[in-house]
């Protein structure tokens, strides 16, 4: 009986955590930053292009997806080609939170705290099925796993897979760049010829 109550209080805690972030107007996008006093169209655009081309992720992994995330930084896949290899250990200096793995109800607190500690503008990628929807843990008997990190914090890009291949994560980062700057391979980035009728 006591155990049951503990689970219930954990659920309430998760709900409270979810309210913390979703309540402050940042829902849905990473751009819920406190707006500037003045908007200059050109400066804004340059800002976005720069932000898109330098997404520094946080050194933060929760489960097996984190291994694939590490592979993304190494030879063969090398996310540094797009300037995103600067894994900052401090949330204050990072732009991108890659939720790589299963979010437990106990871990939820830490995830939300880390998200709140990041400086605006900030973005979130949910990597892998666990982070998207609870994956294999989304069953009736589940008592410990948050079914989807988007219940806690706003997510910008979902990368499905169990775990996703490193190319998948790179594609996720490219998608995020597209979301920030409005076009695939935003300006200073080299444009690659479209091949084989894809796109």
């Amino acid at each position, binding site marked *: 009986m006591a155990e049951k109550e503990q689970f219930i209080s954990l659920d309430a805690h998760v709900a409270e955590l979810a309210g913390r972030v979703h309540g402050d107007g940042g829902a849905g996008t990473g751009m819920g930053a406190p707006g500037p006093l003045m908007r200059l169209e050109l400066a804004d655009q340059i800002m976005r292009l720069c932000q898109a*081309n330098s997404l520094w992720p946080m050194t933060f992994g929760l489960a097996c997806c984190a291994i694939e995330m590490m592979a993304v930084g*190494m030879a063969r896949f090398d996310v540094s080609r797009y300037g995103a290899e600067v894994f900052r250990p401090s949330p204050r*200096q990072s732009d991108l939170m890659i939720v790589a793995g299963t979010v437990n109800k106990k871990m939820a607190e830490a995830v939300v705290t880390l998200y709140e500690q990041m400086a605006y503008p900030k973005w979130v990628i949910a990597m892998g099925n666990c982070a998207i929807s609870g994956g294999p843990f989304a069953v009736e008997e589940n008592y410990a796993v948050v079914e989807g990190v988007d219940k806690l914090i706003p997510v910008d890009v979902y990368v499905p897979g169990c775990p996703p291949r490193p190319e998948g994560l790179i594609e996720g980062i490219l998608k995020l760049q597209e979301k920030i700057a409005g076009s695939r391979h935003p300006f200073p980035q080299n444009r690659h010829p479209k091949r084989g009728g894809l796109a």
Partner: protein
Amino acid sequence: MDTAFLPPELLRMLIAALFVVTVVFVNALFMVYAERKIAGHIQRRPGPYEVGWHGILQTLVDGIKLMTKELVIPRDANRMLFRVAPLLAFTPVVMPFLVLPFSENLTIIDMNIGLIFILAMASLNVMAILVAGWSSNNKYGLFGAMRSVAQNIAYEIPILLSLLSVVLITNSFSMRTIVEAQISGLWFCLLQPLAFIIYLIAALAETNRAPFDMPEAESELTAGFHTEYSGMGFGLFFLGEYTNMFIVSSVAVAVFLGGWSGLPLPMDAWTGAFWFLLKVYILMFIMIWVRWTYPRVRFDQLMNLSWKYLIPFALLNLIVTAVIVKL
């Protein structure tokens, strides 16, 4: 030019200030790019590649992004000190540019205490790190700052001792005199090889670079003393670090590697700067190479290295030099 609007001395100061700021920023932009590119190639990957031709615009883009990021000041931080610390870290590393002898004519001021001036300014850097770690009211920040103070105090002694043994030979602290002594004689890295090696090792530690980057050891201290800094506050620490690298390499070149001397070029008094900068960047390349090759040392190993090996050997070297000079 007597009736000029600006007195020549003031004009000279303005040009010098502009020159110094340009060198600092261009150097940092170039070095961050070089570091990421070299790190990439050491790990068999291309490094920044897609942003601009071979990723050449990457650091520029990063810089603009850092400026657009929110500046977070933690609630419990000491607001004033927290704001001042990055400036404190950045300003003293710019000052030594005043006395660096780039070439015979390209020296801003030739002070007769040049070397001491540089060392004094380099020690100020520690204070900035301590202020940063202390004011951010963060346990990792404080640990990082404390480590940095212990490390920098330990490694300033071998730096001073190794440079002193050169000063004993030249009888002068003026950077120009030291360089000219090498042009007429041997380079001091050949006369004083032990002092040169000790200086190089201690310089790595003094700039908080790997394998001696204890103040910001990621696996133990999050980001060390700049854990709480976001945006350009962190950017200024970064700028300071790369400028500091430039300064210690320049001192090594001026004191041990013959300063501006090299193969003769036209207009030698000005273009000697080419050889000076070439040597500086070769030394900086070696610093990057070391960083991406060796793992971080433990803190007790770091302290032992300085107090048990570098300082006794530097002292021995100083005594032997003193005796030989006296004879």
